[in-house]
């Protein structure tokens, strides 16, 4: 009888494996486990066995039944899954375009501006803004610009009928902040600036600058180096080097020009850096004591550094944009290229 049971179980397992449809499963279940199944028949024949063998054989039958039940269940699941996949696969082409919320894009100058803001916010700077329509005091006098300095000319600076002017750099915000707040001061001021330059590949009458100013006890050129280095690495990558070299500005002393190693050739020399290996980033220096006196900060107690960067220039460098005028065309074929640039 045991041999009979084993044979039956083997056969049933084979049949179950051959089931193809839910209906097959239904039939197989009736055939192998139903009332008239052979398994049930074996139960009825238990009596034929000696009493002491009955429990053990009964258990065998139950084990076999359990096995068949789980085989049926798993085969049924397989059939269902296959059917579900087959149904979906009929006319499915996963390469067709998705239905997305078509995202717009930030202007590349905005992207760079916000990236710069992020870098400085991370370094503990605050963002300060000021008016673009300025007076001569904040734009020139307070910044230690001589009365006869050529930058004050109509050919360089836009003037308004009201007697005011359009700021030529965001350093005006330095003055406004130092007038209103006591050190320690640690700010950047991004924003639009204006110079009477005809638009050409590297000039625009309207452009954006970001100015950094740190005033505290014990601030030295070493802090300037530090900040500049951190900024250059955050913006252009960890391999980028920075340097400062002597220059002249009326509002800083010592004054410096800031360079970073060429992001195109890593300093080897190429067309972007005109074979110098270095790219000019902007002006910098230690705040001139005359500027401090103008805003009522004691230069004996406090020292500070400031520097200014052109945002368009950084955007052009970073994205390899050859002509500044492209930035003001607002061609969405250009703008769309920056969808993937995060702020």
């Amino acid at each position, binding site marked *: 009888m045991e041999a009979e049971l084993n044979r039956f179980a083997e056969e049933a397992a084979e049949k179950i494996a051959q089931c193809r449809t839910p209906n097959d499963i239904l039939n197989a279940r009736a055939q192998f486990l139903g009332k008239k199944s052979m398994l049930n028949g074996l139960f009825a024949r238990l009596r034929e066995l000696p009493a002491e063998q009955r429990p053990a054989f009964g258990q065998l039958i139950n084990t076999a039944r359990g096995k068949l039940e789980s085989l049926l269940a798993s085969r049924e699941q397989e059939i269902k899954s296959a059917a579900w996949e087959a149904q979906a696969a009929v006319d499915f082409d996963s390469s067709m375009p998705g*239905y997305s919320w078509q995202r*717009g894009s930030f202007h590349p100058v905005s992207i760079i501006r916000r990236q710069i803001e992020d870098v400085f916010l991370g370094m503990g700077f605050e963002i300060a*803004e000021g008016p*673009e*329509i300025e007076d001569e005091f904040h734009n020139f006098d307070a910044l230690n610009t001589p009365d006869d300095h050529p930058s004050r000319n*109509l050919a360089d600076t836009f003037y*308004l*009928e009201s007697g005011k002017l359009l700021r030529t750099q965001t350093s005006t915000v330095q003055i406004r902040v130092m007038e209103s707040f006591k050190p320690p001061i640690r700010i950047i001021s991004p924003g639009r600036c204006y110079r009477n330059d005809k638009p050409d590949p590297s000039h625009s009458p*309207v452009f954006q600058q970001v100015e950094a100013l740190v005033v505290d006890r014990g601030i030295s050129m070493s802090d300037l180096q530090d900040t500049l280095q951190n900024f250059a690495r955050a913006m252009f990558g960890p391999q980028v080097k920075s340097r400062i070299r002597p220059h002249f500005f009326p509002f800083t002393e010592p004054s410096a020009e800031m360079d970073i190693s060429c992001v195109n050739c890593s300093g080897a020399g190429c067309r972007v850096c005109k074979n110098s290996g270095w790219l000019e980033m902007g002006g910098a220096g230690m705040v001139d004591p005359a500027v401090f006196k103008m805003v009522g900060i004691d230069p004996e107690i406090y020292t500070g550094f400031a520097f200014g960067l052109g945002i368009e220039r950084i955007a052009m460098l970073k994205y390899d944009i050859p002509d500044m005028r492209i*930035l003001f065309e607002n061609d969405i074929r250009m703008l769309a290229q920056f969808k993937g640039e995060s702020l």
Partner: protein
Amino acid sequence: MIISRNWLAKYVPLEMDDDALNQALTFSGIEVEAIDHIPALPPEVVTARIISAEKLEDSEHLTLCMVDIGDGSEPRQVVCGAPNCSAGMVSVLALPGAVLGELTIKSARLRGVESHGMLCSERELGISEDHAGIIRLPEDTPLGKSVNELYELPDTIFEVEITPNRPDLLGYEGIARDLSAALNLPLYIKEPQPVPGVDSDAIGLSLSIVEPQLCPRYTARLLADIKLADSPLWLKTALIKSGMRPINNVVDITNYVMLETGHPLHAFDYDLLQGETEDAAHPSIIVRRAKDKEKFMALDGNEYELDGQDLVIADGKNAGALAGVIGGKQTAISDATKRVVLESAAFQPQTVRRSSYNHKVSTDSSYRFERHQSPEMAARTSLRATQLLVELAGAMVIGDLYDAYPQPVQRWMVALRKSRISLLIGYEMAEAKVKEYLGNLGLEYVKDGAWQEELLHDASEIKECDISSKCEAAMWFAIPPKRVDLLREVDLIEELARLDGYHKVPVKTPPSIIMDKHAYRIRNQVLDYLVGIGFYETLNYSFNDPAQLQLLGIDPQENTHKLINPQSGNQALMRISLLPQLLDNLRYNLNHGERNLKLMELARLYPADQNVEPLHCTALVTGQLRAGHWQNPGRQINFFDIKGMVTGLLELLDLPGTKMEPLAKSWLSQTRNLAWFIEDKPVAQIGALQPAIADKFGIDLSQLRQELWVIELDVHLLTEISRNRKRTFVPLPRFPSVSRDLSFVVANHISWEHIYRLVKGVDEYLISNVEIFDEYRGKQVPEGLRSLSLRLILQDKEKTLTDNRIDALVDSVIKELAEECKIQLR
């Protein structure tokens, strides 16, 4: 750890109130987790003797007592339910009129018997959680006395958390020392005086440490003639208030001294200790590792199976204690105890921690030893306990202290550079102040010398620091052995910073005030939102062309800044509208074949009559919504798409519920335009650009068969209005909402806004929302009418809405609409 203010005040004068003490503890680095004030008891609560106690008939647990309060008056009849109530005992009686917390004692009848007061448990007096029975006071307690004096009430119990680096704070003395150092208060800690022992040959001990690594010091003191009894009330009170149960005078004294000094002690019954051999002259104490599977029956009644990692205090035969963790039952103090071995030892913290952890038994002793107790303190602690045993248990001290201390801890000295202090804590501290603080903590200033990082053990090793030698000047301090945590210069600096108060550490950079973070956030949110829903950000010069302004119907002369030296005539004005250049940008892109465009610019405007340069945003939209998808044929963007864009932004800025109505603009459609007002100022506007205007900018809308939508946002106003907004959580509704739909026909000229307000107005509280889910105009509906379908969302915050209330509410809505709008239900 639980400490009583009154007990603490024995070591340091505490004149401040509880809040100030809390403050002082907190800033000295002792975190206060809970404060429990035990108020003074009313004068009606007095000591009393139970003269007689008889079981009350018909009651299983009530006793009828006659109680004497010692004032010569007649004994009072009191019914008491406590099981330990018996004749002769002295207890505490609350007389009628006494107020105990929320309970006022009154004369009452219990089971028909009069009762004039209540005999009290400790819990009823608020001094502990014990409520097993009424208080039993010593027999000789004077009667009729206020209980406040006996229990030192009022008192305040502080539950404090001692950080693991400060084992010296695990006793009252340590906390007092710290407070005295921080607050510059006198400290009353008495050094126990030596107690001479009596020589006796009859009693002795064989002491040996097998594992000096695990037990650097073991002292044992033999005491005879112990009179085991209850502890005096002051001692019991002290233990109870510190969260311990009094047991008997010997055990109580070891606990008391542990709480006082932080150093745990243990007492063995001398007569239960065995020798190593049957004929040994004296019993033994052997500090050894447990044998593998050695059985140990502990005081907590559990049997532990030990292993070679455990350290035990054994006699000649068996483990008598799991070192530093728990004593054994076999050698425990009992009523029969006459002679005692008082253990005061030091154990390696790791060993105690491991045993405590492995066997899951944590005790006041293991808690302290785990955190490292100095071997140097063992003898002093033993002496203090001995003193009390002599005083309170009539003990006779036998011989000298047995003191196994193979490698005494060498006193150590730490160098401290003055310059280093200011470098670390940010301000200068005067040398005198440094010495005073550290002196108050028990550190001894040795001398000045050359700085070195390594500890020194002898003052003679300190090198001179003269100008010629290359060295840094430092002050050398000898550390009291109890302060096992003071090993490095920084450890001393931490003490100084702590005692002087962290609040004195100056703020180097004052908090930010320059940046307008809110404006920055709003600006970014607006830009991010618009780019997220598909806009391309443009950037244009800050100038307006006067001619273009005129095309829009704006007077270029009015309210504008004029440039003296513009580069060209079309850049002669500072911008007062972003629209003209955006239209130029749109035309430029249309000319390149783009049909679906969403352009925006976020920039300042420069109106001459304002002293700010307000940030504005203008956006143009034309073409299809999510154009050209193979599965979803596009449709032209309509008014409600644009409206939704603004609604979404206002939600993002948390400015919903804004008033909306059309606002005439010379370049927008008169009908298809809408403005949002907050505080009666227009903050946003949308509308269809007039085709004639578009035409003037070279955009032929009729040829394109497209509408051109304009969005204008006053970002400056949005920023100012949303400043200082505060979001508060509204608890979630606990009852389900229900919805009811309503369809009706109504005249076209009646706006949805009007209907919405009417419906909401029926019951602002219960009608939580009204949604519109269908509009129909056409054949089924007469000319001039439209069919609307509303969904009312109804919710009561207090209870589930019944059908009756729902129906009544819906009826009111229908009635209101019928009266006000002449609706006809469908």
